[in-house]
């Protein structure tokens, strides 16, 4: 991308809602350039600041997208950044298990997007229905089109329910909840559990890894059990895990199950869900009748990533260049967060999406300026899980870019898990939420 041509285009077209495809735009550029230096200087002097270095559209206002939008403005200065998000407010998946357990309200994990305006991010509430990578524009359901120089896609996950009989219909009807995207489903699952009979069974099914938030299902089991322990004695939580063992913070969760929820939580490994019928979950060797069935379905990069053509690993995930987070398939499209095909031992977490967003923001600014990108990025992850209403355990990792293998690698001897659950880490977990929400939203 030629820097001077970008400047010219931005100057000339900032105020027009033009959505010309790339070739026409280039033709127009040529025409503009021939107007000569006087006219360009005139354009540049309009407005109080230097000309924009380019247009970035960010799709998806979660941990990845909102962070990218804010940091593009913080670090990029004169850059046009538009965040497209379908929802009116941000609802956090992290901490939302506390809502299901009755220890927090949905309002406690909800934040307004309004604060992003102070960083200079333009926000459009809408649904992206098409991404035209050749013409470099996105189309919204409203019919509006947004042209871009660089597109950031942080679309999150969608589900692959079809491998489980009856699951798609059950999810579509709302009878069975996944509650794996925070929002109305979070509140609805809490209601289902609150209205369950005393002595009932809540069954939670876990898909094979990888999925969003590796420790999340086990934290959820703890939160549901903490509610049942206090409010519905004799009730149980059945954890039906398709994996051969607890896949994150194993020892710490096992200890929590035994110490706090003995006789309440029952954990079964190698339980791969085959069929859903009513609130009965069917497996190879048994049917489990639950009063409340919470199915966490198999996951993949969200539909929008599929539509954009960036999903290129196992028809599930989007591979990226880790120096820039740019898709390995579609130029000028950067993919963040849970939709990406992860580097080794890199978790699908909100924290990691936030870190990836900063790598992308820094790189996009350099690319728009025509300058070299950071050749030695570092990302790290911290994930806190509540095992009781107050006590928390963590897992942490640091990932340095490896130039030879062109991927992030964890640093030997770094990272790890809590020595034991503690209320101190419970306070740190809530501080983490406050700080990361402010880091992404302002």
């Amino acid at each position, binding site marked *: 991308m030629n820097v001077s041509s970008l400047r010219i285009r931005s100057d000339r077209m900032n105020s027009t809602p033009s959505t010309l495809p790339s070739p026409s735009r280039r033709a127009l550029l040529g025409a503009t350039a021939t107007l000569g230096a006087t006219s360009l200087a005139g354009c540049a002097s309009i407005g109080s600041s230097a000309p924009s270095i380019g247009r970035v559209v960010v799709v998806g206002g979660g941990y990845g997208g909102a962070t990218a939008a804010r940091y593009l403005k913080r670090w990029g200065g004169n850059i046009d950044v538009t965040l497209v998000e379908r929802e009116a407010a941000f609802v956090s998946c992290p901490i939302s298990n506390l809502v299901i357990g009755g220890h927090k309200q949905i309002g406690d994990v909800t934040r307004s997007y309004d604060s992003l305006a102070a960083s200079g991010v333009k926000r459009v509430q809408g649904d992206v229905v098409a991404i035209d990578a050749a013409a470099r524009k996105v189309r919204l359901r409203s019919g509006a089109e947004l042209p871009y120089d660089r597109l950031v896609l942080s679309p999150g996950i969608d589900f692959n329910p079809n491998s489980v009989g009856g699951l798609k219909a059950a999810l579509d009807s709302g009878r069975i909840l996944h509650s794996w995207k925070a929002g109305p489903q979070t509140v609805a699952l809490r209601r289902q559990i609150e209205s369950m009979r005393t002595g009932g069974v809540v069954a939670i099914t876990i898909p094979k890894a990888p999925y969003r938030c590796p420790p999340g299902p086990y934290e959820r089991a703890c939160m549901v059990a903490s509610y049942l322990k206090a409010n519905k004695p004799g009730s149980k939580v059945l954890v039906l895990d398709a994996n051969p063992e607890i896949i994150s913070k194993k020892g710490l969760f096992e200890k929590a199950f035994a110490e706090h929820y003995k006789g309440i939580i029952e954990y079964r490994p190698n339980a791969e869900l085959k069929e859903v019928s009513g609130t009965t979950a069917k497996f190879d060797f048994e049917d489990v009748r639950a009063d409340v069935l919470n199915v966490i379905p198999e996951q993949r990069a969200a539909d929008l990533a599929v539509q954009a053509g960036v999903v290129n690993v196992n028809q599930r995930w989007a591979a990226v260049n880790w120096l820039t987070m740019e898709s390995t398939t579609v130029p000028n499209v950067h993919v963040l967060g849970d939709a990406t095909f992860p580097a080794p031992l890199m978790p699908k977490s909100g924290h990691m999406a936030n870190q990836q967003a900063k790598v992308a923001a820094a790189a996009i600014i350099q690319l728009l300026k025509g300058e070299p990108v950071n050749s030695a990025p570092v*990302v790290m992850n911290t994930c806190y899980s509540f095992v009781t209403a107050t006590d928390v355990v963590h897992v942490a990792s640091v990932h340095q870019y490896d130039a030879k293998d062109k991927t992030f690698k964890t640093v030997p001897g770094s990272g790890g898990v809590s020595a034991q659950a503690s209320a101190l880490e419970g*306070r740190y977990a809530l501080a983490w939420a406050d700080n990361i929400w402010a880091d992404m939203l302002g």
Partner: protein
Amino acid sequence: MTRSLASLIGIGALALSLHAPAQAQAADPNLARNLAATCANCHGTDGQARGEAAPLAGMPEQRLLNTLSLYRNGTLPATIMHQITKGYTEDQLKLIAGYFAAQKPRQ
């Protein structure tokens, strides 16, 4: 003889002192910013922390670097920082400490 040796050493020292800033300039000027941004999730944007997390903005460089080093070598007990600091090189921690020292603490 002595004199010429001294002048040689002098020239050597001058060359070294010229060399060091040249190397620093060649490094990515955004590296410290980018590294420090990995701390923001817990310690706030540019170290402006909320709640229980330690505010890093404006902390003197040497004090922060010493603290990070003590976490890194296991001298200072921590819930998590001993694990995180081991993931960064000493040079990276120095850049991070320098970046936060240069940030204005919230009034």
